[in-house]
Structure formats: structure tokens, C-alpha cells
């Protein structure tokens, strides 16, 4: 029987490793979580992890934070969840903090300024790729396409606040699903 203290430390260290060795975040973190928390520590099964991903998609916030909190709370309750989440966040926090000071100085240099001119166009390409991935994952129904178009037009042209659009689309989805189910029941 492990002491609680040791379990908290293990959670912290495991998720520090996950936070430190995954670039880009999001789904990129899942394989490492599977290896570290699943195969090595036996905290969760592969099925559990799939469910966590499904839940993470339907709850707010970054997927990696959701997974860390969930696994931590399973293994060590509230304080376990805290240790895992803190461990996950700490590497990013420290690295970005250091970089934010360096970046200010570096961006003054001409070569860096030139490099960033290329990088900006490259980042657009990465966002386009992410958009394509999400487009493929979205349900292929007339209702989905209508929501997509409405969200796009509201934010891009009508300058509606993003939060209002998000809440509105969630309510529209809820209404649509409930109506569709009632019709099916009849």
C-alpha cells in the first residue's frame, strides 16, 4: 500500500513529464498520457482513456488539462487532481515565462524579424489544416452546415461576441436534438 504522499508525487511527476514532452498540445498529448499513465502506472485502461477524450471534447478547456484532472481525481481524489493538473501546467508556464522575456529582445534583430515574416504565413497554413481536421470530424448534416455558416457570418461580418455565438449554437443544437428525438418517438 502506497502512502498518499508518494502517490501525489507520482501524479505530479508523471504529468510534468507529459507537459514537458508534448509539443502543440491537444491530441498530441494523448499517446504520451496513454504510455505514462496507462502502460507504466496502470492508473487507467485504454478504454478509460478513450472515454476521457470523449468527455474532454464535451467539457470546456484544453483536453490535456481535462485528462490530467480526471486521472488525478481517480487515483488520489481532489488533491490528486490538483497535483496532476499542476504538474501538467508547470513546464509550459515556466518555459513560456522565460521565452516571453527573450522574445521581446530577439524580435528586434533583423534576421528574427525576417524569419517571422515567413512564419506568419506558415501559421495560417497550420490553422487551415486544423480547420480541415475539425470540418471532417463535424457531423455531416444540413443542420451542422447551417450552424457552421451562421457562426462564421455572425463573428466574421456581424461582429457578434464569440461567447454569445457559442451559447446560441449550444442552445440551437439542444433544441434541434430534442425536437428530432420527439419526432422519432411519435
Amino acid at each position, binding site marked *: 500500500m502506497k502512502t498518499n504522499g508518494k502517490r501525489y508525487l507520482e501524479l505530479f511527476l508523471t504529468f510534468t513529464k507529459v507537459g514537458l514532452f508534448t509539443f502543440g498540445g491537444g491530441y498530441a498529448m494523448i499517446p504520451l498520457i496513454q504510455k505514462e499513465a496507462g502502460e507504466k502506472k496502470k492508473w487507467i485502461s485504454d478504454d478509460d482513456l478513450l472515454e476521457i477524450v470523449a468527455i474532454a471534447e464535451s*467539457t470546456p478547456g484544453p483536453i490535456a488539462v481535462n485528462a490530467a484532472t480526471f486521472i488525478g481525481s481517480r487515483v488520489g481524489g481532489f488533491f490528486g487532481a490538483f497535483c496532476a493538473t499542476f504538474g501538467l501546467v508547470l513546464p509550459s508556464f515556466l518555459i513560456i515565462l522565460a521565452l516571453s522575456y527573450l522574445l521581446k529582445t530577439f524580435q528586434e534583430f533583423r534576421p528574427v524579424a525576417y524569419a517571422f515574416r515567413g512564419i506568419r504565413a506558415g501559421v*495560417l497554413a497550420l490553422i487551415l489544416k486544423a480547420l480541415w481536421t475539425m470540418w471532417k470530424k463535424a457531423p455531416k448534416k444540413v443542420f451542422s452546415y447551417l450552424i457552421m455558416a451562421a457562426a462564421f457570418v455572425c463573428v466574421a461580418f456581424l461582429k457578434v461576441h464569440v461567447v454569445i455565438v457559442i451559447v446560441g449554437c449550444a442552445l440551437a443544437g439542444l433544441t434541434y436534438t430534442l425536437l428530432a428525438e420527439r419526432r422519432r418517438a411519435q
Partner: protein
Amino acid sequence: MTFLTLFLTFLKIGTFTFGGGYAMLPLIREEVAAHGWLTEQALIDFIAVSESTPGPFAINIATFVGSRVCGVFGAACATLGVVLPSFIIILIVAKAFDRFRESKSVRGCMAGLKPAVVGLIGAALLSLALTVFFPGGFAGSVFTDVSFYFSLAVFALCAVLAFKKLHPVAVIGIAAALGLIGGYVGEWLPVK
């Protein structure tokens, strides 16, 4: 006061973004611009930095904006704010795992949220693209500007590479190299 604003703004961002990754971008873009914390160009630059450093985008951007606006403590406030909603919600959901998953209301909301995120990222991409391609605002004269065609070419090449599943860090590396070459070649060009 700024600490509280940072915390509350990122609390809002953490509460209203579903799906993680670039799903956060539309709301972050709106909030960061509304407070005047970062220009669109600085935001794009930071996306590149975030892709090339460990950790989730949301954490990285919260730390970065927080530290730019008011140092280490600002970074801590923003990061805590962005993490807190997920943390609390998952703690609650973990207790009622199955009930949450099979809940009709959750599935209903997701039916609206999944496509909404596609539309929102589309809108964010459009706005960021305007900043990159027309940095001085949209005018007919940009079409005679060499740097416009340069950006367009780098974008097209990087898009092909990204869709061929080249790693994002490699895409950024190539874009940086092209930017360097383009910048120095540009110095020798007779036209600007």
C-alpha cells in the same frame, strides 16, 4: 485591478471553449484584441512559438499574455483562470461519469457546438489572414507589393506540407527559413 481582469478574462476563455487546441483561438483573439493586450500580428507570432514549445496552446497563450501585461504574477493569474473551469467541471463530471456521457442535454449541446467551432475558427482564420496578407490595411496597391506575393507563396507551400502531415514544428522551421531568405533577397531587390 489588471490582475483581476486577466484572471476573469481567461476564466471566460476557459469556460467557453470546447475541444481544446485551436478551438480557443476565436475567443482568445477577440478578448486579447478587445483589451489591447496583443496585436493580431503578435498573436500569430505567438501561435508559432506555442507550436514549437511544449504544452497546450491555451496554457501557453495565457502565460504569455499574462506575463506581457503584468509580469510573473500576471502570468500566474491568467494561467490559473484558464485552467480553473476545466479543473472544477472535470472534478464534478468524474463523479457522475456515465450519467454525463449518456445525458441527452450534453449530446444536444454538442450537436450545436461541434459545427460552431468550425465556423468560429474559420472566422478567426479570415481575420488573421487579412493581418498577414494586408498588414497595412486592404488597398489595391498591395497587389503590386512583392511581400504580398511572397507571403502567399509561403502560405501555399506550407499548406501543402501541413496537409501532407508534416510535423507543425517542421512547417514553422521551413516558413522561418523562407522568411529569412526572402528578407535578405528583398534587400537586394530594386523594387520594394
